[in-house]
């Protein structure tokens, strides 16, 4: 019966695993709702910000901000990468990193250096192993990320863009499409890509207080910050969705494993009983 006991312990341990995955699944299911609410709450600001930035980009002609004009030669590029703090969320982070690595390899082939700012523990751990230039990091944003937690890392990148040490800035995060789908996304932040909505034919200008340059700088900085913040929230919702799906499939697999192990266990038990009976019968016949 030694085999049977081993199988029984194995069944018990798989059952425990299943309990854990189910608990994680339910936790994520409730957190995803909160994350989506956060996303919704921050949307008015993002929309208003986009409008204002759009107005600014097309209204002003007297002063060209460096954030708006693209540079001809690209010698060094910056990436802001948003990842999760915890694992057990399927291929969410690795899909994003894989996409990013392909880009980094392309840049390296062109002899362009890459600066990286990592948000979230997973990106920190991943990118410190690589031969990239990690210039800033933030982690443990929690369930309710605050914009204060992101100001520092964003400022590093904006400063080095203004100083001319990077010529392009890209944001990498997981876009929350729906619960089943999260899309690894790379968005160019700087120079601000010219979009159609920004280019309508209106000829007017603002009254600036105190002056165009400083107001523009301020508005564009806030605009970038709001984009990064919005992406962080998207990534958070994606994390919970991915974890929910991953835990569900892990739970299903555990159930399958339990079923097949139970079958084996019963067979072993049956075989042992049969053997015992035949031994007894054999013994009785010998007497």
């Amino acid at each position, binding site marked *: 019966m030694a*085999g049977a006991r*081993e*199988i029984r312990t*194995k069944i018990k341990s798989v059952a425990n695993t299943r309990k854990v995955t189910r608990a994680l699944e339910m936790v994520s299911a409730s957190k995803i709702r909160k994350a989506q609410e*956060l996303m919704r*709450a*921050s949307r*008015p*600001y993002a929309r*208003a*910000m986009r*409008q*204002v930035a759009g*107005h*600014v980009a097309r*209204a002003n002609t007297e002063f060209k901000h460096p954030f708006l004009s693209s540079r001809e030669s690209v010698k060094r590029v910056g990436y802001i990468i948003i990842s999760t703090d915890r694992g057990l969320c399927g291929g969410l982070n690795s899909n994003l990193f894989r996409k990013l690595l392909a880009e980094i390899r392309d840049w390296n082939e062109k002899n362009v250096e890459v600066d990286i*700012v*990592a948000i979230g523990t997973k990106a*920190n751990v991943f990118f*410190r*192993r690589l031969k990239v230039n*990690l*210039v*800033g*990091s*933030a*982690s443990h944003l929690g369930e309710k990320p*605050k*914009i*204060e937690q992101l*100001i*520092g*890392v964003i*400022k*590093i990148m904006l*400063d080095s863009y203004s100083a001319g040490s990077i010529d392009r800035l890209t944001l990498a995060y997981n876009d929350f499409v729906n619960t089943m789908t999260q899309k690894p996304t790379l968005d160019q932040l700087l120079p601000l890509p010219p979009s159609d909505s920004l280019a309508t034919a209106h000829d*007017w*200008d*603002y*009254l*600036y*207080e*105190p002056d165009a340059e*400083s*107001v523009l700088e*301020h*508005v564009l900085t*806030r605009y970038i*910050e*709001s984009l990064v*913040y919005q992406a962080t929230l998207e990534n958070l919702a994606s994390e919970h969705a991915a974890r929910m799906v991953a835990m569900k499939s892990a739970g299903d697999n555990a159930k399958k494993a339990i079923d097949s192990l139970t079958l*084996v266990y019963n*067979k*072993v038990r049956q075989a042992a009983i049969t053997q015992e009976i035949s031994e007894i019968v054999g013994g009785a016949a010998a007497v």
Partner: protein
Amino acid sequence: MSTIRCDIVGAESEIFHGQAKLVIATGEAGELGIAPRHAPLITRLKPGQVRVQLENGEELCFYVSGGILEVQPQVVTVLADTAIRAKDLDEAAARRAKENAERLLANRADAVEIAQAQAELMQAIAQLRAIEQLRKQTRH
């Protein structure tokens, strides 16, 4: 009586939106009163109150710790900062983020981490071996 649409939004939530007769805010260069059909204007806000006079004469008062005020002929937008912002504070935040990265790079080959990974590997191998044995036993 004409009114102007007023939106006050914070980065993490919407604060107010509706029709207003007059919006009063503290701009960088002084107090501003925005009435309907004001000329387009954009300014930074100083920490202070934003007062909104509604159609029925009621006055609402919000505190903002800075932000941006944008005026279009039909709409006033206040983008309020939720965080307290100052150049020094921003710089400190940037420095902290940089230090974080440097600390990470400094203990790149963390001995504890390697030990932990090894222990996990051993466990996985042991589990695999157990399963292998189980298979052999049940087949006979």
